[in-house]
């Protein structure tokens, strides 16, 4: 099982992701924005990061770029609400900047768990 860091400003999204991941036996850490998430990634041993794209303080794109700089091998899944004009393109940028996968919200447990397994296997 893996230690997975969820970075999302929406508490309900964090809660949902945590329950889905826990159902597979993963250990979940939560961060409400990019800065907190970066601190957690630096301080804790993290196997995978799931990060929203649109967030206050540190935008998702910057968070992903900073995480990739911190650990070039760290698997990252970028997620997004996919609504505003500025969001769809950053989701693609996130992949370019090093996100292993990108997934638009909303999604069910199966979709995210497939990507989690795939990300962990590719690095493990």
């Amino acid at each position: 099982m893996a230690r997975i860091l969820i970075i999302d400003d929406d508490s309900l999204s964090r809660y949902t992701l945590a329950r889905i991941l826990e159902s597979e036996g993963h250990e979940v850490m939560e961060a409400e924005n990019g800065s907190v998430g970066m601190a957690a990634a630096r301080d804790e041993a993290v196997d995978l990061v799931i990060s929203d794209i649109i967030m206050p303080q540190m935008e998702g794109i910057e968070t992903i770029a900073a995480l990739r700089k911190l650990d070039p091998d760290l698997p990252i899944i970028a997620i997004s609400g996919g609504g505003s004009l500025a969001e769809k393109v950053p989701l693609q940028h996130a992949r370019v900047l090093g996100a292993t996968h990108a997934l638009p919200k909303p999604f069910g447990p199966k979709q995210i768990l497939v990507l989690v397994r795939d990300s962990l296997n590719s690095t493990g």
Partner: protein
Amino acid sequence: MPLGVAVGIPYVGVVLLCWWLNSVLCLIAIAALCSLLAAAGYFYGPPPAEDWAALTNRGFAILAIWLTASLLLHAKTERTVQPRSQSALKPGVPQGNRAAAGVKQAPASAAGARGEPRDALSGSEAQLRAVFDTVVDALIITDAYGIVRDCNPSCCRMFGYRAVDLIGQNVSVLMGPPFSRDHDAYLRRYREGGEARIIGTGREVTALRQDGTLFPVELSVGEVLYGETQLFVGVMRDNSERKATIEALRRQALIFEQMSDGIIVTDLEGRISDWNPAAKHMFGYTRQEVLHNTPSILHHPAEAEELRLEIVEGVNRTGEWRGEINFVRKDGSQGVCETHVLPLYDVSGELIARIGVNRDLTERKEAEKAQMALQQQVYQAQKIDALGNLVGGIAHDFNNALLPIIGLTELTAPLLPKESKERTNLHKVLDAAYHAQDLVRQLLTFSRQDPPDRRPADIAEIVHDAIRFLRAGLPSTIEMIEQLDDATGFVFVDATQIRQVIVNLATNASDAMIQSGGVLRIGISAVELDTGKLANLEPGPYFRIDVTDTGRGMDQATIERIFEPFFTTKPANKGHGLGLTVAYGIVRGHNGTITVASEVGQGTRFSVYLPRAADENPGAGR
């Protein structure tokens, strides 16, 4: 009496007999012969008593002969004028001679006062003199050197000279350039070679008044021979007014011919009596075709009589009629013109005709209509773009909200017993959430947040695929006609999305005819768009996909809102109002647009414009 003197008497008698001869040369010849005979008598006659006296007497005789001949010659020259042209001024010539000799011009009718014995003038001479003095045209008599010998009062009035100032001057003072310069040379050629350009013919020349002003005159010249004296009679008519009138008429005719307004002149019976080229251009009929017709040929039969009465009444009541008229051209096409009808009166104030001035407003009206349609399109596009941005923002929050609903419900439901009510309830929640997810996805398509996967594709294939898909679900009351032969070629599009556009439009069209049945046409044409032809579109080559139905059509208010999200004319639960919204969003995402034309009861046509790919086969070689 000395013999020498006596001999002279018969010779003088012989010379006097020459009065009845018309020939001057004969007179001179006889005088010379008599002189010779008188001289010969001295040499061949009996010797005189005194030689010097005989010679003197013979000399006197010869002198008497020549004196008599000279008097006869002078008398004949004074009395005889032989006309050689159309001139009828025989009686005026003596006066001219007197004038040339320095005699002052006397009042016109007072022949006696001029020193002529009244009885010396014949009745006809007096009449001709009166004509000369009173005729309206200017008359002038000159000699072979161009010196003015006489002129009539009209000539003085015309040129501003007094007769006494003019007589004795060269006639060229009355001529404007280049005639004044050339006149002397002309006379010389005439004297030397007999070249006569204007004798007996009329021509227009430029004349010069004493005050220096130039004016046109019509001049005719006649030649007369007065004894051995050659004279010319010039008749002049001031052409200034006539020329001004002709020029004014010419200018007015030019205006009539060249003005851009169509002018129709009708007589009092309402028949067309004139028609300018602009009217031909405007209405398509030639002047010959409309002459003696009434203007009703230019109007719908149902409107023609009422319009005619309105115009006639308006002109009679207020002196004019103005209004906009719908007209029908010769080829059957229609137009609009602004018409101003005025009465035309003759010099006595009698109404003789009506003039209609027609300004073609067709192009202007069409341009205004197109401009309004364009503004409407811009407004529509701006409104829909604003809605798209709004929807995009809301969709983000919707997706965030849907994540826990879908995620947690999917996570929880399998944990409940399979047939339990709770698990069934959760599945209902999931159905609702998936539906909401689908709506959000469609809204995002409308707001163009989902970039199309664009590839080169054959437009005809895309449309044909969509039609094949549509045929399966079309009710038998609706006939579908495919018109794809007009244009084929490539577009750079997301084929799936464009198929969806056609399916959405065709479904909408089909729904409009579901009860009554009808015809659904789908066609493609290649078009070139000019600048400003359609709002938000760059000029250039496009494909236009027309989806036309014969359904119930839409009013203007419905057309204005037709692309708005959730706007629908369908019954509740029959449509969510996103089909056209999504279609519009997709097409705008491909740098195209959709226009709609509809009339209530007539049907609707949606036209999808998509940019044509520059290369006929843009995928080739990749």
